[in-house]
């Protein structure tokens, strides 16, 4: 499978995606997100206190997953410069972030990844999270020592694993990915990750493998733990459920498979106003490879930047300017407000 960009699909263009999602008069049963907020007596969704700096250091990946909202893949060359990484470090040094969340692509493929983690570890940030696709640990011998590297800096590892069986996992992420992921998890367990060792937290990330929402996080976590332990002797800490957001490749899948209207309708029917207080966009600063700021990684992929005067780049980030500002929303936001809610940190309520 190739990225949408590699095959010149129109859905690789963020403008085309936004135009489709936000068409006036289209999608008969799907309201605009801001209209739904108004129905619940909520005006604008606004930012709160910044606590998470989520940095997307590049779109290159060794996998090409069917649901990827980044449209990541081996062909993507966009990557953050060392200079912008240093801008991120300076933002961390202000002490206003509790967490650095490093994502991609496969962030480990960035040549400056290890230096970035080491530099971040010397800042006041309390927690460094790396979003790892697991198979990268076996993609090349140069990545085989990553578990030890993560351990050295007390990195929390968030690993994608859409299901505890090969059928669903491979269907979403590629042939053979499940068994490679199992081997990678064993490597992480072997150095203490997921084994109850303080500071070595291993979380799994569950994305539904199709046009449906995630089941309750606690229920799925019990099943994942039970099956992975029984069948493979694998241990982890928490399962984080994330609903697929209709952006990029997942949007393409929804449209091509005739599921778009039904999926969006389901998200709308399950709109839960109790999720609004805990949405990640309220306390996250999302930074793209060029240093530009967004309310979340999904807005980043739709090229919907933050609209805060004097704060368009991580270089000029300030926590005072961040607070109480309008969050850019669209119909894609219904994925985060459905049911128990969805975020990069799992269910919201």
């Amino acid at each position, binding site marked *: 499978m190739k990225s949408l960009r590699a095959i010149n699909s129109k859905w690789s263009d963020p403008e085309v995606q936004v135009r489709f999602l936000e068409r006036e008069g289209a999608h008969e049963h799907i309201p605009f997100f801001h209209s739904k907020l108004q129905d619940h007596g909520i005006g604008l969704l606004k930012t709160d206190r910044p606590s998470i700096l989520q940095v997307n250091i590049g779109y290159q990946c060794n996998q090409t997953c069917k649901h990827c909202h980044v449209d990541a893949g081996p062909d993507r060359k966009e990557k953050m410069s060392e200079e912008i990484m240093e801008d991120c470090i300076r933002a961390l040094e202000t002490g206003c972030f509790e967490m650095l969340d490093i994502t991609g692509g496969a962030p480990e493929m960035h040549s400056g990844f290890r230096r970035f983690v080491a530099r971040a570890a010397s800042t006041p940030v309390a927690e460094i999270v790396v979003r790892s696709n697991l198979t990268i640990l076996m993609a090349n011998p140069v990545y085989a020592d990553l578990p030890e590297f993560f351990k050295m800096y007390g990195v929390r590892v968030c690993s994608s694993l859409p299901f505890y069986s090969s*059928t669903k996992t491979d269907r979403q992420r590629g042939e053979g990915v499940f068994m490679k992921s199992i081997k990678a998890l064993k490597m992480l367990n072997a150095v203490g990750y997921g084994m109850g060792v303080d500071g070595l937290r291993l979380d799994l990330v569950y994305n539904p493998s*199709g046009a*449906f*929402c*995630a089941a309750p996080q606690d*229920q*799925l976590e019990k*099943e994942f733990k039970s099956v992975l332990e029984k069948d493979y002797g694998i241990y982890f800490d928490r399962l984080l459920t994330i609903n697929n957001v209709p952006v990029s490749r997942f949007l393409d899948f929804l449209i091509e498979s005739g599921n778009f209207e039904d999926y969006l309708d389901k998200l709308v*029917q399950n709109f839960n106003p109790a999720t609004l207080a805990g949405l990640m966009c309220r306390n996250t600063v999302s930074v793209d490879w060029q240093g530009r700021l967004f309310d979340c990684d999904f807005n980043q992929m739709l090229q919907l930047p933050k609209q805060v005067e004097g704060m368009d780049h991580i270089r000029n980030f300030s926590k005072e300017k961040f607070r109480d500002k309008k969050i850019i929303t669209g119909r894609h936001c219904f994925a985060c407000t459905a049911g128990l809610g969805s975020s990069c940190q799992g269910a919201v309520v």
Partner: protein
Amino acid sequence: MDTYYNPADLKKFSAIADWDKNLAEKFFAWYGEVFKPGELTAREKSLIALAVAHTIQCPYCIDAYTQDAVERGTTEKQMMEALHVAAAIRGGASLVHGVQMMEKAKKISM
């Protein structure tokens, strides 16, 4: 009406209250209570519903409980096994009447 079954009608289920609010409210309250986790988990109840949906051959129920089962992480093999249980009971119910058939045939035969 183009077809007897319209997928869009499933979303209008609650409209049955338009003609009898009292009974509809009682039904939906009871229905909601039935599917709450009890001695059986919500997932087990969902799987029973999926099997029964096939036995009564209700397309709305098959649609709803297939979606529900997949969302709950029920595997494809588990779903198919549940269907075979339903089908086995259904098939068995036909075959067990064969005893009645045989008794009757014996009775009227010399």
